[in-house]
Structure formats: C-alpha cells, structure tokens
C-alpha cells in the first residue's frame, strides 16, 4: 500500500499543500495520506513524498496538476529525500525527527526516539539532570545564548514551593521560523523538554507562550498537550496566546503578559530565576533550547558537547530566509561559515542577483557584508565582529537593497513595538527615524551622522532591554559597511 506524505506545516500550506493533499485523496481514495511536518527544504514546498522500497521518494513544488503524473510514476522526482545532499550533509539533532513523522502521532514519536530523554531523566536525581544540561554546553537558543544549565541550577536551588517553567514561543523576529516548525512539526519534543525541565527544577506548572500569528502552532500544541497528558506526571502544562506585541518576546515582558498585564519590560535584577512569574522562581527558555534537552538527556552530554566550536557547543538550527534561492532549515554544528550557509546551502539570491547584505539574528542583528562571509557561526566570533548569531535567523538581501532604508526601518520598527517604559527606546527610536531622514535629504549630513552615532551609543547603554539596546546594531552595521547608501538622495 502506498503512503503519500504531504506536509501540514504552515509554510507548505502557504504555497498550496492543502490543495495538493485534497488532489491526492480525490485521485485515489485508497492512498494513505499522512500530513507530516516539513523537512525544512522550504523552497521545494509543497514537498510530497511517496513511500517506496528504496525509501521515501520526494517531489518538489507540487501542484494539484502534478498529482496524476506522480501517481503514474512519470513525474520527475528529487530522489530519496533522506539522501538529498542538502539534507544529508546536515547534522540534524534537534530537528532529527522533523518531517519524518505525523506530528500528532504518539506512536510515531515513540518509534522515533521520543521519550527516551524523559525516561532517563527520571532515573537520575534532579541535580544530575541539571549537571547533564550544564555539561552539554547548551546555551539559550532565543538569542542571548545564556547557558541553560546555569539558569536551571539557580531555579533548582531556590527553596521548594511553587515554581514555573515557561517556554518562550513568541518568535517575533523576522527571519526566524524554527520555533514555529517545532510547534507545528514536533510538538511532543517540546513537551518532553519542558517535562524534563520541570522535573529538574521542581516546577509543577508550565506555560508555552505562543504568538497569535501562529494559529496552526497553537492548535497543534494544544492537541499535543492533551495527548501527552499521561507522560506529564502531574506537571500542569498550558498554552497561552500572545496578542500581537513583539516586545512580549522579551522574557520579563512575556511574564507580565502571562500575568495578564501590559507587556512592559521589568528591570533586572531580580532575575526571573529568583522572582519570575507571579514572583516565583521561573525557568524561561526558548522553544529550541527546551526542544534540544530530550536529545541531550537521551544521548548524554558528551555526544552533544562534542559538536561545535569554542564556547558554542552542539548544533544550531539556522534558518535561511529573505531573498534566498534555497530557503529553509540548515541544522549543523556551530563553526560553519556564514558564506557556506548563504552561498552553499542557500544558493545565493532567489532573484539571481549578487548578495549584498545578510542580516543575522533578527531585526536587532547586524547587517553583514559579503566580505565577512568567512565568519564562523560562533557566538563569540560574531560578537567580536560587532554582530550576533542570535537565534540563527539569516535574511539575505540582493544588490537592490537600500541600506539607509533598512537602518531607518530598524528605528521605525523599534518605535512601533517599544513597550514605552524606558526613554532611550521610546523616544530614541522616533528621533532615529528623523535623523536618518535628515541625512538622506542631505541636511547637515556629517553633523547628523554624529548625532546618530551619539543616539546609538545612548540607546545601547541606556535601554532596559534588548529592544532598545540592540536596535543600534543593524543601524551601525549599515553605516559602517554601506556608508555609500547614506549619501544624500535627490528627492
């Protein structure tokens, strides 16, 4: 019997996967149609796979019109998907199951290594679990890169009582979608990771804060939590939906929102590990951080730690987006160069024109010129180059990009999404837009560039959180690497 796999991931659906699945069902009612997660080869979506004796044969960019040809065996395939060089050359650890399984099938999950981490964790003491995570070198995948084990230890060492584990799934940064793919494509992995965290730190309640722009992720997660109930052992897990505020991806703002308040950033200290949600000790980790924990517990810290370079251990789930020919998920050990990702996996731009700039780490990350394509993806190497790896989102721009417009947008975005609590961010963002407008119209260019630099310094040093503190990063990088775009323009 033939099984057809048509992804249910919203990226695949955005280019017609539902219509393709319906066409298969109509063409041959005897087919078994599995709505799997996406493999992450997003430029090939909808990527349909047909089971065969050699493995799952893939067909890229399928439309309903291609269905009869695929079933008749006359359509051109991309071969066995698992052997596709783009995929086979990666080191998939967190995304090992992604796209292979039906995301909501408990049987699929268990048959593909699921629950091994939680089972092993429960045979260990809490301190041993935390030590394992610390030794793995796992750092927060949300962008800041704080060692996960140290955070956990702080919460574990707090006196017993009400403690929380919160998963930050408010993935608002442009160029990132790996969290969404986990929510939609492998939700049990995240649940398992949170259950391990809860066990390790002694938490009884957990929240997954998902942005409202991800309705598919919310629905999948809610259903998965219902089905995973028996594994949770009394750990009460709930999804909460954001309400369209970017700033709620900042951890303290997210806590305020979870408490039912305006998403205003809190001053730190106290850090959330001591006084977090409702004033209780709280572990806050990003989706990918928690989703990586089951693998670490199942395979041991050493296996994970052996991947990567310097202090960036393990793998990162890089996300290629923007104007890129082969956009999608590239999970590989830290240390791969930016150029290998953009030119190698990405295949350059979608428009075919030369790459001019790449923004790494989201809207608050630096614009990197092609002359720095030899930079290794490593937290510290990027920091040294005044850039950041962040959460591994990589957005490609071709030569038509106007970098002064991108710098202006960084301020415009900050002005629109600032929580308003601290002045450097609330007012500085608005002033930044005005100053760039003056520079571009040729009003006292040099003086205004000096004012802009001053403003960037003030925002970096004086803002409460990363929103105001990092908005200068894309701006400064645009000025430093693409100063020619800041010449006056003829109106």
């Amino acid at each position, binding site marked *: 019997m033939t099984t057809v796999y048509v992804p249910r991931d*919203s*990226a695949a*659906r*955005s*280019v017609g996967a539902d219509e393709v699945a319906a066409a298969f069902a109509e063409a041959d009612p005897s087919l078994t149609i599995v709505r799997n997660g996406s493999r992450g080869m*997003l*430029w090939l*979506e909808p990527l349909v796979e047909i089971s065969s004796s050699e493995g799952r044969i893939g067909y890229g960019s399928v439309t309903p019109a291609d269905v009869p040809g695929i079933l008749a065996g006359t359509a051109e395939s991309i071969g066995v998907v698992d052997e596709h060089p783009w995929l086979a050359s990666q080191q998939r650890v967190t995304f090992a199951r992604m796209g292979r399984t039906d995301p909501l099938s408990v049987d699929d999950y268990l048959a593909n290594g699921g629950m091994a981490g939680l089972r092993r964790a429960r045979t260990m003491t809490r301190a041993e679990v935390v030590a394992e995570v610390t030794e793995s070198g796992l750092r927060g995948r949300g962008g800041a890169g704080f060692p996960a084990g140290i955070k956990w230890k702080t919460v574990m060492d707090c006196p017993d009582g009400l403690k929380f584990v919160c998963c930050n799934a408010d*993935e*608002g*940064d*442009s*160029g*990132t*979608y790996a*969290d*969404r793919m986990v929510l939609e494509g492998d939700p049990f992995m995240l649940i398992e990771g949170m259950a391990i965290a809860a066990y390790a730190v002694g938490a009884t309640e957990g929240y997954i804060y998902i942005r*409202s*722009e*991800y*309705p598919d992720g919310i629905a999948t997660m809610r259903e998965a939590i219902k089905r995973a109930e028996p594994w949770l052992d009394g750990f009460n897990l*709930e999804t*909460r*939906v*954001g*309400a*369209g*505020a*970017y700033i709620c991806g900042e951890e303290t703002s997210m806590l305020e*929102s*979870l*408490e*039912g*308040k*305006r*998403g*205003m950033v809190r001053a730190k200290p106290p850090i959330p590990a001591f006084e977090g949600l*409702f004033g209780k000790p709280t572990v806050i980790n990003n989706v990918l951080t928690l989703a990586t924990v089951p693998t670490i517990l199942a395979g041991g810290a050493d296996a994970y730690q052996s991947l990567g370079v310097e202090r960036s251990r393990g793998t990162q789930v890089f*996300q*290629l*987006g*923007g*104007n*890129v020919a082969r*956009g*999608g998920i590239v999970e590989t050990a830290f240390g791969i160069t930016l150029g290998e990702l953009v030119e190698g996996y990405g295949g350059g731009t*979608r*428009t075919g024109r030369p790459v001019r700039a790449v*923004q790494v780490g989201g*809207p608050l990350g630096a614009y990197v010129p092609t002359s720095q394509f030899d930079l290794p993806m490593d937290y510290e190497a990027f920091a040294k180059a005044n850039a950041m790896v962040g959460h591994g*989102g990589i*957005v*490609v*721009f*071709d030569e038509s990009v106007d970098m002064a417009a*991108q710098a202006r*947008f960084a301020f415009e*975005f900050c002005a*629109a*999404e600032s929580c308003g609590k601290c002045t450097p961010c609330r007012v500085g963002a608005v002033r930044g837009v005005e100053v760039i407008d003056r520079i571009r119209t040729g009003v006292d260019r040099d003086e205004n560039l000096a004012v802009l630099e001053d403003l960037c310094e003030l925002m970096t040093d004086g803002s409460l959180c990363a929103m105001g503190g990092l908005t200068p990063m894309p701006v400064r990088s645009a000025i430093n690497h693409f100063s020619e775009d800041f010449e006056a323009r003829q109106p």
Partner: protein
Amino acid sequence: MSEPPTSEPDRPRRKRREAAAPSPASLVDPAIAAPVRAAVAACREQRGNLIPILHEIQRTLGHVPEDAVPVLAEELNLSRAEVHGVITFYHDFKPSPVLGPKVQVCRAEACQAVGAEELFAAAPGLCGTVEQVFCLGNCALGPSVAIDGRVYGRMTASRLREVLA
C-alpha cells in the same frame, strides 16, 4: 451592611451615596455585558487570565468594545484604567469591528527583501483595510500575507487579487 458603625461623622453619608449610584458595569448594554461575563467565566480557573479573556471577547464580538472595560474591572477586581491599559497595549484587540476579511501583509525584513513594501503599498487598492504585521514565520517563502489567519506565501498583487476574489 455588616460593617461596624464608624465614629467619623461624614462616613455613613458617603457610603449611602455610593450605594445609591449604579455601578458603571451595571449600565453596560447586556448585549455586551453578557458575552464579556461569559468570557470571564470561561477563563475563571486560569492564572493571570485577562489576556485569554480578551481573546475570547475579540473572538465572540469581533472587537473589544469600550463598554467591556467596566464589566471586566468589576469581574476581575481591577481598576478601569488597568483594564483599558492592557487592551490598548496589544495590537490584536480592536476597538471597533473590522468589516470584510482580515488581511495582514508582512512588512518585516525577510519579506522586504522580496518586495513586501511594494505589495503593502498596492494592497489597500485590492482589499480595503490592510494591517501591517511583522513576521508570519514564513520567511523563506515571502512575501507573506495572512487572510483571516491563513498564511499565503510568494504573494504578488495579482495573486492577492485572485485569493480575495
């Protein structure tokens, strides 16, 4: 009133006046007050439940009317200012109902790199009200547009016209 009598001479008078004035919540049209109270009841067991309640009101009424504020304040024992502050902080809670499909065009960097600004400029001519949104998580297949929550990738003005037709 089971409170002990107070020695302050003006206190009983003030209390009487308060009791006589109808509460702001009681003046709200039942067509709004009833679904608002139902939303509160549905989320009663959740901690920090104001955001889930507001989502439920937005879902059932298509917006979060100003008249919901005194009802929520009474139900949740918050000040009206606090409730108003929360509602206006979040983009998802609309002060008035939006007619027609909800069209959100992504204007974030990844979609900008493939022409989102041009699409955003052209969209109002195709569908009336258009919201900007910063990232729909479809960054490899932009420009992205969400119509009533469903995401469409590799969007162009002509395809948007087709989808909305």
